[in-house]
């Protein structure tokens, strides 16, 4: 290997020898700059004629040591001159962006403005979708059936196993916990009412919405986001294909259609789990359960549940697509928007669920 960088203090001058490269410097780091400083303070004459190589990292080190000016006496071989010249000519002032002082109101203010801008974006996207629907009514040949089908399959059919499993387990849990309480009051048979109303009207839709927001919402945001990053959306536009009709609308429509079906499916699985748990825990026969379910849970509850599924699916897909279109071409923004999309989707679902609960408080409640 070539000689490490080193310096010798000879009478009247500093002599540098060896290879002065970043890789070689690394091994000597805390000590060497200190020695250089020391030498620079005492001697104004430098001899670099025995330096084998000098790269820009080492040149910067020397230039800093010399206090950013040429030393009074310097022996510099021609080969090294250009490297040092480059460093000498460099201006080190970075134009800094003028940052203003922050007032304590700035942060909440910014948050509100950002929220308002997102809201505007969502409303604009919704409006665009309505316009697109109008266009499709007039030009039925443009309807993206293929993409619509693909989305129903991806967001709906492929979600069947996981929603069934989660629904079933939640059903078992609720049934088990409730039956423990009910038995102590001798009110075993009310398990049918409790399970029926809570699952069909409330838990089924919310549970599925949360699963779907995590599963399909994030996927939609990431897909549209990457399409933006890789300029695929621009390529689509260039071909005269509307990105909302071909990309956004099929996702929103697909999830809006698939969600009620998923809610139905997951509620059925939850009821099945609840029934089995009741059978084991309370000896409540399946036949009794089936006989009493329609009486305990009026049909309106099922319609409310399905309606919720429809609305939640629409919200999740719309939010997901909105944040997907907001992705800026970098990985950080992709990650941030995917997170925001899922969090916002779930939050909105819960808010709308509360609105539903208040608006439908007189409907479908069984009168005993």
């Amino acid at each position, binding site marked *: 290997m070539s000689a490490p960088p080193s310096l010798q203090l000879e009478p009247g001058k500093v002599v540098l020898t060896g290879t002065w*490269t970043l*890789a070689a410097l690394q091994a000597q*780091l805390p000590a060497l700059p200190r020695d250089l400083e020391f030498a620079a303070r005492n001697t104004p004459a430098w001899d670099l004629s025995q330096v084998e190589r000098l790269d*820009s990292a080492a040149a910067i080190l020397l230039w*800093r040591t010399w206090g950013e000016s040429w030393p009074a006496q310097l022996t510099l071989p021609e080969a090294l001159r*250009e490297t040092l010249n480059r460093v000498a000519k460099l201006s080190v002032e970075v*134009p800094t962006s003028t940052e203003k002082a922050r007032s304590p109101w700035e942060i909440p203010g910014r948050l509100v403005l950002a929220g308002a801008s997102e809201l505007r974006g969502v409303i604009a996207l919704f409006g665009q979708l309505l316009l697109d629907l109008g266009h499709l009514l007039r030009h039925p040949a443009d309807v993206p059936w293929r993409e619509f089908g693909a989305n129903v399959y991806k967001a709906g059919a492929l979600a069947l196993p996981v929603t069934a499993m989660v629904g079933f387990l939640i059903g078992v849990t609720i049934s088990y916990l409730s039956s423990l309480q009910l038995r102590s009051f001798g009110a075993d048979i009310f398990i049918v009412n409790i399970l029926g109303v809570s699952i069909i009207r409330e838990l089924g839709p919310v549970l599925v919405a949360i699963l779907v927001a995590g599963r399909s919402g994030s996927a939609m945001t990431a897909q549209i986001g990457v399409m933006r990053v890789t300029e695929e959306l621009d390529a689509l536009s260039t071909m005269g294909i509307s990105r909302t009709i071909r990309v956004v609308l099929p996702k929103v429509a697909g999830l809006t259609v698939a969600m009620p079906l998923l809610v139905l499916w997951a509620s059925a699985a939850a009821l099945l789990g609840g029934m089995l748990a009741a059978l084991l825990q309370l000896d409540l026969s399946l036949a009794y359960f089936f006989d009493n379910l329609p009486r305990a849970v009026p049909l309106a509850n099922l319609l409310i549940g399905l309606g919720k599924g429809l609305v939640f699916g629409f919200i999740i897909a719309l939010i997901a697509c909105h944040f997907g279109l907001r992705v800026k071409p970098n990985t*950080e923004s992709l990650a941030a928007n995917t997170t925001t999309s899922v969090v916002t989707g779930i939050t909105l679902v819960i808010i709308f669920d509360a609105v539903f609960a208040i608006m439908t408080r007189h409907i479908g409640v069984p009168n005993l």
Partner: protein
Amino acid sequence: MTALATTAVLELQGVSTRFGQILVHHDLNLRVDAGQIVGLLGESGSGKTTLLREMLGLWRPSAGLIRLFGSDLLAGGHLEQQAIRRRLGMLFQQGALFSALSVFDNIAFPLRELKCLDEDWIRRLVLLKLDMVEMMPVHASLMPAELSGGMVKRVALARALALEPELLLLDEPTAGLDPDRSQNFVELVASLQQSLGLTVVMVSHDLNTIAGLATHVAILAEKRIIAFGKKEEVMHLDHPFVAGFFSKERHKLL
């Protein structure tokens, strides 16, 4: 320089690469010595980028051996690989800048990873590299998405140069640069080569770059290196690709 000169910087022995049914390289041999600037030529799709990726250890060839600085990169542990990789710089065909980091941070990133340079030193180094590739200091705060295609190339080159590599792998360095910038790039690499004794392997379709920079030329065709040698020797080779590549322009340029 005695022991160093005898070991090749880069050595490929019997390298074969297969993607599913497609055989890209078959029994390919190449040896690059210190100080050479090798232009790797070949048709589009002939496997030049793949070969560079294999040199970097990013892709394991189906068969054969690749030695960097005399040792097999993929055989070593993490630390050995890191030590070898710090000695080389790569300019990717698409730039491969970190999209979440600004231009400045992209170039500063490998320097900060060394964990032994102070911020002032890093800042000067970054600005110096930017200056070398003719970027203005005002560009330092831009994000990669805000750069033009040629600017991406130049920033990527600055990043590849950040660690002062001994071996520089360049994938189409001058594609997308205007003729002036290409010429300056040629001069930059030539001067780096002079002062630091760099070894360079570059893929390029640009005759100006090859003519101005390369000392040696390797021709990748028929799945192997059909010719490797001094530019002037390989140019006159009797092979359809070589004849086509050098025919019209060669008298004008060389």
